[in-house]
């Protein structure tokens, strides 16, 4: 059976090669759908739950009392309300920035130790990635509704929007260079125009996500970091106003969509 399949696949590789890019796109779509039916993201959610409950840091405390916006320890629907303004920190925070805040304030961990390894790889995911998967999963089925009422939330939105258009760096790129016009691609990768609600909604509803091509779990802070790397810019600090403002801007643009992540990416 497997052999027969392999045979057909080989025959196709040999004879279907001149097939149009359109067919390739369809195949990629089919593959994505297949992967979506049983997502490896679940493994990260399980690991994240264990980390959430694990006593860590100088205070040997878990994150179970972490306030993600709906009160200490409330996980259900918390991700759908982020980013938002937090009075105790006097600033707008996205999920990862807030998790870092809880590691420092509840567990007593230093910033340096807690941010030592924010982005993992296939062999070893990071703590932040697993925690993000666990927390985000508790908002499945809920409408994305980031904070919009506080003046600092409004300021973050405006900063994020301005950053989206800011051209700089060795290659003169802004976010709009790739994500500014509908229907464009880099190689075969389609690019969402995150200024438009109809494009931003599906992005906001599926991140963070399992990334098939690298067998790892990716977060929004990673996405901002990696975009700036490809834009030939220096590195934005994790949880900085810049990355939070961009995530807030994108989330507000895509608000109202029902969260169905953590999803799968190519």
């Amino acid at each position, binding site marked *: 059976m497997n052999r027969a399949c392999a045979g057909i696949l080989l025959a196709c590789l040999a004879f279907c090669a001149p097939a149009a*890019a359109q067919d*390739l796109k369809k195949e990629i779509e089919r593959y994505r759908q297949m992967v979506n039916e049983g997502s490896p993201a679940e493994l990260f959610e399980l690991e994240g739950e264990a980390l959430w409950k694990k006593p860590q840091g100088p205070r040997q405390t878990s994150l179970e009392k972490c306030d993600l916006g709906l009160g200490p320890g409330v996980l259900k629907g918390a991700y759908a309300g982020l980013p938002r303004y937090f009075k105790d920190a006097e600033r707008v925070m996205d999920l990862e920035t807030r998790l870092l805040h809880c590691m420092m304030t509840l567990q007593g961990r230093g910033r340096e130790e807690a941010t030592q390894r924010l982005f993992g790889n296939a062999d070893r995911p990071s703590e932040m990635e697993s925690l993000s998967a666990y927390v985000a999963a508790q908002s499945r089925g809920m409408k994305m509704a980031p904070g919009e009422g506080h*003046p*600092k939330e*409004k*300021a973050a939105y*405006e*900063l994020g*929007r*301005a*950053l989206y*258009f*800011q*051209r*700089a*760096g*060795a*290659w*003169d*790129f*802004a976010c*709009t*260079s*790739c994500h*500014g*016009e509908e*229907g*464009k*691609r*880099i*190689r*075969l990768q389609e690019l969402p125009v995150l200024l438009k609600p109809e494009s931003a909604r599906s992005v906001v509803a599926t991140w963070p996500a399992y990334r098939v091509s690298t067998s790892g779990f990716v977060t929004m802070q990673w996405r901002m970091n990696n975009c*700036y*790397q*490809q834009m*030939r*810019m*220096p*590195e*934005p*600090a994790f949880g*900085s*106003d*810049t*990355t939070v403002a961009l995530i807030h801007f994108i989330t507000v643009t895509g608000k109202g969509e029902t969260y169905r992540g953590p999803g799968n990416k190519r």
Partner: protein
Amino acid sequence: MKLVWLLALFPLSPALAQPTPKDVEKVMQRDFRAHGQAGMDRVVQDGVQRVCTETRDHPPAELAKRLEADQAKTIAFPQGSLLGDWKSGERIAQNGRGMQWTDASGTASGGSCYNCHQLSPKEISFGTIGPSLAGFGAQRGSGPEVQRYVYGKIYNAKAYNLCTQMPRLGYSGTLTEQQIKDLVGLLLDPASPVNQ
């Protein structure tokens, strides 16, 4: 009376004010860190980047013309034929590395051409941010005029269209003179797959 005072002090509510490119630059200077070859100087906008940000890539025609002329002065055209080796050009066009904080400085960069353009019809993984360049030389020939145009456009695309999304690949130090010549070969040489 009190209200007038308040209005004088805060002409715009800070929450509603839209940050200018200069404001954004200041935020970025605070929030970014130099990493590898990507230094903090890259956060600081030059005149072209500033005008294009301010005008959302639609600069007034007069200003665009003036700044394009300034950019044209940065192009150093080599003597003689500009038609390099298309085989080397194809490798440069395929290579998407270079100038990132993850790329070692000192190693040759690629041109990332296929990221945005169709070139050789054999390559099906091409981007669409820029126009298709398939058959470019077949349609235009490979004379000195068109060689000069292609070389200049790759060296500093902003000299031809101020707010184009195409990087200034020579001006920014991404590609060498020889690499750009090889890309001219890829686009114009009748033997290049681009023109088959």
